[in-house]
């Protein structure tokens, strides 16, 4: 190990700082590893003895690290928001699917009831056919005619329905999907705001406490000045 130092390098004699690195970076030490905390605790005491190039370099590492930390914070927020949106979307989709399934069940029952009623009418028509034994009214033909006409009508109705449903489903699908996405996003935004408001309250409380504590400690700032005055007025006697 050499005991050469950057202070002895001629080219660095007139080094001009790139950063305001006279004071060490101040940050929450809990954010770094235990080893870093130990090294920092040792070096902070001797910060003023570090060459400005090193002070600058450390400060530059600190700035780069802070930037990545900010990116992490933003990504974490985004992740949280996307996760909340995903969960909201899943919940909305589940509810939507359950609603549709329930509607289908109701429609299915309605269709079954109608089929039963039609069956009953069919039986009634047969009864009437038997009553009109001589076929004076031509019930069999009338029924066949009705069936034929109804089949035609149903076909037309089905075509009309199909056309209507195609347009309807296109409109509904596009809007429903957008609404579901928007609703999920709105819910996650509301969650985000609730968390932000919680953080604002926590910071406001912490800052008020810090202000009170700092005001109490200000007395030591004055004390230092008093002691400095005292020191300048005293001198030592040579011991006899």
């Amino acid at each position, binding site marked *: 190990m050499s005991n050469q130092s950057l202070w002895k390098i001629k080219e660095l004699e007139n080094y001009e700082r790139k950063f305001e690195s006279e004071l060490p970076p101040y940050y929450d030490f809990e954010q770094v590893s235990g080893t870093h905390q130990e090294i920092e605790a040792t070096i902070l005491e001797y910060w003023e003895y570090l060459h400005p190039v090193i002070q600058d370099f450390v400060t530059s590492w600190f700035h780069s690290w802070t930037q990545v930390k900010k990116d992490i914070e933003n990504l974490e927020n985004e992740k949280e928001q996307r996760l909340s*949106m995903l969960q909201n979307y899943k919940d909305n989709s589940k509810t939507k699917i359950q609603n549709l399934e329930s509607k289908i069940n109701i429609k299915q029952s309605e269709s079954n009831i109608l089929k039963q009623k039609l069956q009953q009418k069919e039986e009634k028509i047969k009864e009437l056919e038997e009553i009109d034994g001589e076929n004076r009214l031509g019930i069999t033909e009338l029924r066949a005619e009705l069936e034929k006409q109804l089949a035609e009508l149903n076909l037309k109705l089905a075509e009309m329905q199909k056309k209507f449903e195609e347009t309807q489903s296109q409109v509904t699908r596009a809007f429903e999907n957008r609404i579901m996405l928007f609703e999920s996003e709105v819910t996650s935004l509301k969650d985000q705001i609730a968390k932000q408001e919680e953080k604002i309250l926590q910071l406001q409380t912490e800052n008020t406490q810090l202000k009170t504590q700092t005001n109490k400690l*200000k007395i030591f700032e004055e004390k230092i000045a008093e002691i400095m005055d005292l020191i300048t007025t005293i001198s030592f006697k040579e011991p006899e």
Partner: protein
Amino acid sequence: MGDEVNLPLFRKKKTFWQIKELEGYLSKLNSQIPPDYEVTTMSLDHQALDEIIRPNWEYLHSLEQDFIFSWFMEYQTAQEKKKKLQKELEEINKEMADTQHNSESKIDELNGQLQMLSSEILNLKNELIQKNQLVEDLSSAIQDKQLSRKELQEKLEQRIQDMKKEMILQQKEFETSQMEIGKQFEKKVMELDEEKLLLNETIEKNKEQISKLEKENMELKKKHHLLTNFREKIIKLQSIISEIPPELLTREDG
């Protein structure tokens, strides 16, 4: 104490090699070689500093080497975490897209079933109305012996014609309701869009407030930290002064 370094007055300070407390310092990291990283990804100032320090690395004290190396490691750890988060975010976005696709397919399938059933019900209802009427007509024709087969036939045809008219009306109603549904959806989307905009504005305002409060918090902590140090130094100073025998001190008044 080591050699006295010949430095300009403002730099007349000890080097790390001359600090007695650091003499036995043992490196905590493998920092004998400068950190290996892609320098070009860093800021220009950082690159310039790296260029100065790298060739002079061996002249740094082990503690200085450790400190810089440790910052590099912290940066690396943070970068890894950032990459991990970016990957997680990509996965979440993929899951969102898959969930959306699956949900849309399922909803489309169910909507299809629902529409088929609605159409079936409409047909069944029409058929039931017609058969009800037929039953009524037949019942009254059987009772009324005068009603001829031809009249009954005409009645049936009239009913079918009525039904066709009814269908045209139904179609118009469909179209109106379709437009209404479209308008309702549009309104809902606009409302949600507006709400989203307002919420995003609130989020931005809150972010600004949080950033301001965090800055204030950091400054207050810094100040608090400095004042706490003052307090400790005063206590130390007071104890040093109190230990000096009074007979060794003279006071120059005024």
